[in-house]
């Protein structure tokens, strides 16, 4: 039943225990020896927890749970006091009666803990120690609740967010964005068009999320190609994986003052017989966003509705289930500020409506016996997506439609010194658009990959991680009519062999270090290959280049982690060398020497993709230091230097950032004051010689005439904030016991406390409109 490695661990522990027992027997021949065994799970999410320390109080015997959360210990008597400890969870200690039935020990996430969990590789199921990563739990997300997933993860080092209004946001990791950062739902692709334009939204309602994994750097082996920048894996566990003994439910609400908005979400999980089910959903509404000084940014209101349900058959050997989910939203894209039309906006404003329906099946089979094959798991996700962009007057300027599916099959193996997996993954999507302003050519994109990963234990404290992946991708235009500027439209196919090699070493229980070199690749997108149309969100007319090559990147990461009684820290240094990095650049008309105007409307400058080598170097730091038993200081900082082969700065790179929070911790909650400091963004590409505007906006006929933000520096800023998080149950403010509601968690926070006027260096309209002003946020979660 147990894998051989666990047997080895067990044998070592057992030998040690037997030695102790033998001594004990020599002293007391009447003593009994029994085996205590069971599973440790996350109380809120129900999934098993690996590498959890389990010890028998007062006996000096301990072990760690295996990949399935299971443990076995020799106990001196039928009644023992067990202590279970894991990073990020409250310790669990109880006296238990040892019997034939296995124990089921739920651990509760520690409300005082800080971000910085090590996430687990979805491929091997083992800790992904070689890459900088973080796991944001429901508690973390409740404290960071925002209108978008990207905004919620933006406090992580190396992670930034590109906004075009509160909904149209995309995560940027290590300066890379768009298709280079993959946003997944339960490990599978979401199937929206969020990466294709800066006014498109990630179609995930944040209030319904259980946890979020953030992996920085190339992660192609585990999550698929195109992950040069990193991965944001949003988890809801839509397909239940385990039975729960009692009904579990939760309700959370959230409100904020900056847009007079709020959300309400809830979920319910339960079991009947061998079936587990879950239902959940959320609703969100918000008005226009207030900026410092009191002016509002029109067309930033939001409404969203999200709901889903899942059902699984759960047995001892695994689960098989399905889930469906529906998502609708309507949001505005900012159009003007203080009466001035923003550069890159639609005159009169735009509303975007999104409708997404998804269905997925997932399953896992844990192979019985002691063979090397440990488990087989897989999943398929199918998504139907539609998006309407309503121009002034209510007519549809552009309508997108996409059918997509993605899937994976993973076989996990383990041996005495090995833990690994082989598998296959793929995706397919058929994207089309229609309308007066669309420039997207209908096309299909597909990918199939085979991969293998192995983690080898080398000695007691060193691990070697190797991986290999072969990708085959294709982009097939469904319509090949040539346009004036885009010729030779043809199907493109890309094949790439990528891989990773890493080494991790531990020194005692406090220090870990890892170094990894990875090769990743990204095929050009449909838009980069075939576009021909106005891109009003970026104030450009973008054309594609059907002859583009794939980007290929070599990334090297070095990670040093420390964890002690007084805190933890993670320092990562990385370098990435990307061949054929794609950027969009303005085109010059050879006939006139002036910027080329679009052939249709003669209003926008034509931008075309250009390829060149790029180099990105950076440092990221996150830490928590306990200054005393009650005071803690959390910091997160990042610094990025990105340049093209000729030494010029790459466009749209984030400035250095520092976030620091001083926390007063107690049993009932946390009070904290924080600051976010962004350095000036001075390294921007030089503007074209023939540019017709400057970085200072000039208002002409009510419209801002200004140089594209790509070429304009941004000054630094410091924002102050405060936060109070209370555990109502501990505080004694819980609900009456007769209600059966044990309590909740209340979070009150203020962002931009001083109502500072600041500019987002990554927003295309930064020269004209500032970012949101002071924001009071109140969130409450009730969860047994």
């Amino acid at each position, binding site marked *: 039943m147990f894998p051989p490695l666990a047997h080895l661990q067990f044998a070592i522990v057992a030998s040690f225990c037997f030695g102790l027992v033998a001594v004990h027997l020599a002293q007391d021949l009447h003593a009994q020896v029994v085996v205590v065994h069971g599973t440790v799970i996350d109380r809120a999410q129900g999934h098993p927890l690996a590498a959890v320390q389990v010890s028998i109080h007062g006996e000096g015997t301990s072990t760690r749970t295996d990949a399935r959360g299971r443990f076995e210990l020799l106990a001196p008597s039928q009644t023992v006091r067990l202590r279970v400890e894991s990073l990020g969870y409250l310790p669990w200690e109880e006296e238990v009666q040892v019997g034939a039935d296995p124990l089921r020990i739920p651990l509760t996430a520690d409300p005082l803990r800080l971000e910085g969990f090590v996430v687990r590789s979805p491929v091997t199921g083992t800790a992904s120690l070689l890459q900088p990563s973080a796991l944001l739990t429901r508690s973390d997300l409740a404290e960071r609740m925002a209108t978008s997933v990207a905004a919620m993860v933006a406090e992580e080092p190396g992670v930034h967010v590109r906004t075009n209004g509160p909904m149209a946001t995309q995560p940027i990791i290590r300066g890379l964005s768009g298709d280079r950062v993959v946003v997944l739902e339960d490990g599978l692709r979401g199937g929206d068009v969020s990466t294709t334009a800066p006014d498109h939204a990630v179609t995930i309602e944040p209030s319904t999320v259980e946890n979020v994994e953030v992996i920085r750097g190339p992660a192609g082996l585990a999550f698929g190609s195109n992950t040069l920048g990193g991965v944001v894996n949003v988890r809801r566990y839509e397909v239940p994986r385990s039975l729960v003994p009692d009904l579990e439910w939760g309700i959370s609400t959230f409100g904020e003052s900056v847009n007079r908005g709020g959300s309400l979400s809830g979920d319910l999980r339960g079991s009947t017989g061998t079936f587990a089910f879950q239902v959940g959903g959320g609703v969100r509404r918000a008005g226009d966003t207030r900026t410092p000084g009191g002016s509002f940014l029109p067309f930033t209101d939001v409404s969203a509705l999200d709901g889903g349900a899942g059902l699984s058959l759960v047995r001892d050997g695994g689960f098989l289930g399905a889930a469906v989910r529906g998502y609708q939203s309507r949001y505005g894209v900012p159009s003007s500020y203080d009466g001035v039309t923003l550069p890159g906006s639609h005159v009169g404003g735009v509303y975007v409506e999104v409708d997404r329906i998804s269905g997925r099946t997932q399953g896992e089979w844990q192979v019985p016996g002691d063979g090397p094959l440990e488990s087989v798991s897989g999943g398929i996700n199918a998504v*139907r997506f539609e998006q309407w962009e309503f121009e002034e007057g209510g007519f549809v300027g552009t309508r997108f*439609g996409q059918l997509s599916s993605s899937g994976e099959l993973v076989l996990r193996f383990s041996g005495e010194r090995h833990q690994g997996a082989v598998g296959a993954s793929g995706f397919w999507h058929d994207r*089309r658009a229609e309308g*007066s302003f669309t420039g997207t*050519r*209908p096309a299909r994109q597909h990918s199939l990959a085979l991969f293998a990963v192995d983690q080898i234990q080398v000695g007691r404290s060193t691990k070697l991680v190797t991986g290999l992946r072969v990708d085959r991708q294709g982009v097939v235009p469904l319509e090949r*009519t040539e*346009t004036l500027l885009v010729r030779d439209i043809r199907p493109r196919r890309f094949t790439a062999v990528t891989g990773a090699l890493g080494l991790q070493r531990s020194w005692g229980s406090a220090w870990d270090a890892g170094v990894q070199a990875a090769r990743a690749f990204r095929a050009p997108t449909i838009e980069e290959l075939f576009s021909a*149309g106005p891109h009003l969100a970026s104030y450009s007319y973008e054309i594609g280049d059907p002859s583009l090559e794939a980007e290929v990147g070599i990334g090297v990461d070095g990670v040093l982690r420390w964890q002690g009684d007084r805190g933890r820290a993670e320092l990562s240094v990385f370098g990435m060398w990307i061949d054929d990095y794609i950027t969009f650049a303005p085109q010059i008309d050879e006939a006139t020497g002036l910027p080329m105007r679009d052939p249709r409307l003669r209003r926008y400058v034509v931008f075309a993709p250009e390829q060149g080598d790029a180099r990105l170097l950076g440092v990221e730091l996150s830490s928590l230091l306990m200054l005393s038993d009650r005071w803690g200081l959390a910091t997160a900082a990042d610094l990025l230097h990105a340049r093209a082969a000729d030494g010029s700065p790459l466009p749209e790179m984030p400035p250095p950032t520092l976030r620091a929070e001083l926390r007063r911790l107690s049993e009932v909650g946390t009070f904290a004051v924080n600051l976010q400091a962004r350095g000036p963004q001075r390294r921007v590409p030089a503007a074209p010689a023939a540019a017709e505007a400057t970085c200072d906006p000039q208002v002409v006929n009510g419209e801002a005439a200004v140089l594209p933000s790509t070429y304009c520096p941004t000054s630094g800023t410091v924002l102050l904030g405060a936060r109070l998080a209370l555990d109502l149950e501990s505080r004694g403010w819980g609900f009456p016991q007769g209600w059966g509601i044990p309590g909740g968690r209340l979070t009150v926070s203020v962002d931009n406390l001083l109502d500072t006027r600041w500019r987002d260096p990554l927003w295309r309209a930064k020269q004209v409109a500032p970012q949101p002003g002071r924001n009071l946020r109140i969130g409450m979660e009730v969860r047994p």
Partner: protein
Amino acid sequence: MIRRSGWLALLVIALTACEHPIAVVSPHIEAADLIVEDRAGGQALHTEFNRTWSPSALHLRDDEPVKLFLTALDFRGEPIDISDRPDLSFRMEAEDPAILQWEPLNGFGILRSFGVGETRIRFLIWHINHADFVTPWLDVVITPGDLP
């Protein structure tokens, strides 16, 4: 029976979901200007940066249909051949459709007047269900035709 209907409904829903919501659409025509020629009458008008017309008016005689040849130009001033694009067609809009009507034909159209007076028209290059190109308004002067 109910169970069978339920499965049938699920099957219909699944098949509907698998149908792509948007048909394959050809790209927009990238026209920048338009030439309008009345070859028989010797009139030739064209838009300038698609903002104004030169000359500024089209002169017609009542009861004398005019055959107009329309040619789209790209931003470099080169003609665009749309004869092989069945998804594209020339359309005309008149402010007073009671006195002017447009009969589209292959490569040209016939403009018919039904009264004396002045109105304004504009030409569109229609692409499936929307206009890819719309000219500015053009003044049209209709004078009395030759009486028998």
